[in-house]
């Protein structure tokens, strides 16, 4: 007997599919991309989908959008295994894995209120990044961010 597989969300014509998002992080990815209720684009979100690679994953599909490198860096911090698929005429024309940068500047706020980067000084926050698990260490005050990184995204 043949089991008919149904797509959870329909394919998109032009845009971006972000796959292999850590389960539970899709809404943070939406926030990173800057999608709000008034954006107007077609956005599909699937959460806690079964996955061969990662047990459970989230997926986000956005019509008519491509991501900036800053947005991809932010996604890599909360979902280091995410893949980005660029879609044209329903075809995947490009697919790549996000890559955790070794250093990030100006995309995460230091969670130490006494850090010099949280003052009126003209200095951007900057972190060195270690992988698996993702740990950020502030270049200035040495504080470590290892949990709830999404909360600190600028």
């Amino acid at each position, binding site marked *: 007997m043949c089991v008919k597989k149904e797509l959870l969300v329909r394919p998109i014509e032009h845009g971006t599919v972000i796959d292999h998002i850590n389960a539970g992080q899709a809404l943070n990815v939406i926030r990173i991309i800057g999608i709000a209720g008034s954006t107007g684009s077609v956005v599909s979100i699937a959460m806690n989908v079964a996955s061969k690679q990662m047990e459970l994953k989230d997926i986000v599909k956005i019509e008519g959008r491509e991501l900036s490198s800053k947005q991809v860096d932010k996604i890599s911090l909360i979902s280091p295994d995410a893949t980005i698929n660029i879609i044209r005429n329903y075809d995947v024309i490009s697919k790549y894995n996000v890559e955790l940068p070794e250093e990030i500047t100006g995309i995460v706020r230091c969670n130490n209120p006494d850090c010099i980067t949280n003052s009126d*000084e003209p200095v951007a926050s900057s972190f060195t990044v270690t992988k698996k698990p993702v740990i950020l260490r502030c270049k200035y005050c040495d504080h470590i961010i290892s949990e709830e990184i999404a909360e600190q995204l600028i």
Partner: protein
Amino acid sequence: MSYSLDHVISMKDFTREMIDEVLELAEKLEPFARGRPCRMLENKLLALLFYEPSTRTRLSFDAAIKRLGGSSINFGMVEASSVSKGETLADTIQVVSEYADAIVLRHPKEGAARMASDYSSVPVINAGDGEGHHPTQTLLDLYTIKRESKLEEIDIALVGDLRYGRTVHSFAYALSLYGVNIYLVSPPQLQMPQHIKSDLVHRGITIRETNNIEDVLGKIDVLYMTRIQKERFAEQSEYLAVAGSYRLGSEMLYSARENLIIMHPLPRVNEIDASVDATSHARYFKQSFYGVPTRMAVLVKLLGVKI
């Protein structure tokens, strides 16, 4: 091998070889710290930028540059400077680095010295950034141990607030380069964070923990006392109870090794009773003096003077 230093911001920037070189240089400079005339840093101008009060650090840097024939400038009270008009630290540093040959900075914000080094055209020395680093304190503590005890294969107890005081964390890291045995003595709520303890163990040193200072007094060569701060406790009564049990009196030293030295970064409040001052173990005032040759060595290194 000789190395060059651009700035002195954190002990993490130092290797064991670099520390040894500073300590050896401090020893050579000690006669000048005691007053032998010297013109090694003649015409060198050191800017002392203290955004927070300081006695020992500020005066010992001032003494160090002047004893070596140089001079210093400072902006006095923060209230009387452009800082009170809202000038950023970044701007102040850019201005002052055009006036002076090196800058000593103490600032309430963590990471201030690292940021200052990004904006300065001359070397920056971190003289304390909030709860952050204070590398010349660690260097002078190591120098004190080298001069008054020995730096290798000793047993040392770190006592007091081991949780929040990050200078004690960088001191512990620096000690780990010298293969010492460390006893951590603190009340449960002020214990050294787990990740630092694991780092130290990975570096191959032995750590033992207790909350009773008398457990360790007969087993150590160096007793390093720190201040327990009132603001770390929610209740005044809790603070008083803890502070009382971490007070060292001369009557407690009956079991101490003959060569035990007692150190404290000062100022002390009441962690060490004045009766300890007269014992052969007290070294905290000498430790304060050693701040001068140690800071002389840092200045000589940073200003690239060969001796």
